[in-house]
């Protein structure tokens, strides 16, 4: 067993770290305050090829593997979760469904602008009435004169309203089959009549990532906008979410590592009772636990990503990595604030933002409860 990253992955990690230190770190706090996706930074991430990492070069990508994408997400999340989720959602939710389920014509048309980062796409699954119960989709699409007519709404859709968003893939009920809802995925270009993108939410964290509510009122798109087979929408997005969970685990590890880094530094700098606070056993034990949890979560996502690369089953490992990494990220962020004392509650210190950014990790792309249900099912426990 070899726990080393390939030399080119190590070199790439160093590159991304330098980029993050130069371009993102000096601005993250200001962007968080401005609540707006910094398009300049997104453009620079695109120049670095981040949005096309796991796609072949003929589609505008870099031909890297999925783990390499996760490494980039982790590096960015050490400093800025909003930009890390922007990248994660752009690749995992925006481009990946096209890559996996698109026809060759759809791939050729839709993928290159996403892979080069000229455009972003969203994936709309969650609805006001339910996210975990994705099968309860109420949005409908019916065929009429060779067009899909879409009606309904979606909530919390990442990257759906940026200045460069070119489309959103939405799930909709396209009929019934054997008494079950038939769910399909349809590509809806930005600007289509009847497709309305709402204002951003007032969120707890991820303040400069783009999250919006979408409304569809007799929104009409060509029949060829169907993505993947009709009726396979549900099955297909479950697969997309498996991958996404590994990437969210990487994001959580990045956030936790950022908290460990900041706490280590502060524990040296800050003194109380005439000694650096890092010399007190209570804080030493806390920081040791933070570092341990982070390292174990990292190993969990490396393992899930490796299984996926090897073409072996990884559903359970992906759910475990996501569940563990997101829960330790919240713990580690809370402890990092504690290490910082009152300053941890003040925005000038990054751990304050990290704490706000951490909670969503236990919710997005499958809640902790859903992860436990999934793991239980994979373990073969009887289902109610």
């Amino acid at each position, binding site marked *: 067993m070899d726990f080393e990253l390939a030399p080119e992955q190590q070199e790439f990690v160093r590159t991304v770290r330098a980029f993050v230190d130069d371009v993102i770190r000096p601005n993250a706090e200001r962007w968080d305050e401005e609540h707006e996706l910094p398009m300049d930074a997104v453009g620079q991430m695109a120049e670095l*090829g981040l949005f096309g990492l796991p796609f072949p070069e003929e589609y505008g990508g870099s031909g890297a593997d999925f783990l390499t994408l996760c490494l980039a997400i982790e590096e960015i999340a050490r400093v800025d979760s909003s930009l890390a989720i922007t990248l994660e959602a752009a690749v995992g939710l925006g481009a990946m469904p096209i890559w996996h389920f698109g026809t060759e014509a759809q791939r050729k048309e839709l993928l290159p602008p996403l892979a080069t980062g000229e455009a972003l796409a969203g994936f709309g699954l969650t609805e006001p009435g339910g996210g975990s119960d994705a099968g309860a989709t109420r949005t409908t699409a019916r065929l009429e004169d060779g067009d899909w007519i879409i009606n309904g709404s979606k909530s919390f859709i990442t990257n759906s309203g940026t200045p460069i968003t070119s489309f959103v893939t939405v799930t909709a009920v396209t009929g019934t089959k054997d008494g079950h809802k038939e769910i399909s995925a349809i590509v809806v270009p930005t600007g289509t009549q009847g497709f309305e993108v709402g204002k951003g939410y007032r969120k707890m964290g991820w303040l400069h990532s783009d999250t919006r509510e979408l409304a569809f009122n007799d929104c009409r798109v060509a029949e060829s906008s169907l993505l993947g087979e009709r009726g396979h929408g549900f099955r297909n997005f479950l697969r997309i979410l498996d991958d996404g969970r590994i990437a969210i685990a990487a994001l959580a590890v990045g956030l936790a590592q950022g908290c460990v880094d900041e706490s280590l530094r502060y524990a040296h700098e800050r003194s109380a009772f005439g000694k650096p606070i890092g010399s007190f056993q209570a804080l030493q034990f806390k920081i040791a636990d933070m570092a341990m949890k982070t390292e174990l979560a990292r190993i969990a996502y490396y393992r899930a990503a490796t299984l996926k690369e090897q073409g072996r089953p990884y559903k359970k490992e992906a759910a475990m990595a996501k569940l563990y990494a997101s829960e330790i990220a919240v713990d580690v962020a809370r402890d990092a604030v504690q290490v910082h004392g009152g300053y941890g509650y003040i925005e000038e210190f990054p751990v304050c933002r990290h704490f706000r950014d951490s909670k969503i990790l236990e919710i997005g792309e499958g809640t902790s409860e859903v992860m436990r249900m999934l793991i239980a099912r994979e373990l073969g426990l009887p289902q109610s």
Partner: protein
Amino acid sequence: MNIVVCVKHIPDPNIPGELEGGRLKRSGVQGVLDPGDEFGVETGLQLKEAHGGEVTLVSMGPPTAMEAIRRGLSMGADKGLLVSDDALQGACALVTARVLAAAIKKSGPFDLVIAGVESTDGYTGTMPSTLAELLDVPQVTFVKRLDSADGTIRADRQTAEGYQVVESPLPALITVTAGVNSPRYASFKGIMAAKKKPVDNLSIGDLGLSSEEVTSMQQIASVGSAEARKAGEVIEDDGTGAQRVAEFLKEAKVI
């Protein structure tokens, strides 16, 4: 346009350095491409993009110095040449210049040689000028902006008072300052492509240099820490404070 960029592999300047017998400890420490040389590589790449041609990276150092060449290749340079030889350990600036001159001549005809103003570890700043003399080409040092490089070069040359606009025929050697551009980051595609780019490993024998030519003329007599800065003068303002500050600035020739 054939461009040669001199690159140096140095101990990571972000990690406190250690001494080993009067010299900076180099083996077993994390090394990086000298951040000052990234500006040289970027200058070379921009010229190539504007005028076509090839960017060749030349370095002298232990085998691990290949990392610096790889870094430059990942950024987009075309090929690399590393001179490695046990006899070169602790080489002085003159020996380094001789070795690089021989390596550059061996790599073929060139239009422009680019180097950083000085290395981030040694800071002598004498190597590039020596190299230009050995190559018998004009040198333009401290370039903070490069205008054209079409047959001749026109450059803004940083001076203490401002800058000079200098023109020189090619081939020539320039040294670039940290203000000249912002070096690009290596993309994953660049890193993968670098693995397939040609690199040459040469010894001093391959360059036809005699052992005399590579014997350092400089000896390091001793190394000590710089004198700690003395405490400044504190002026209590008894009404003549401003006068005293003005005198101080006059003495320092600031006003």
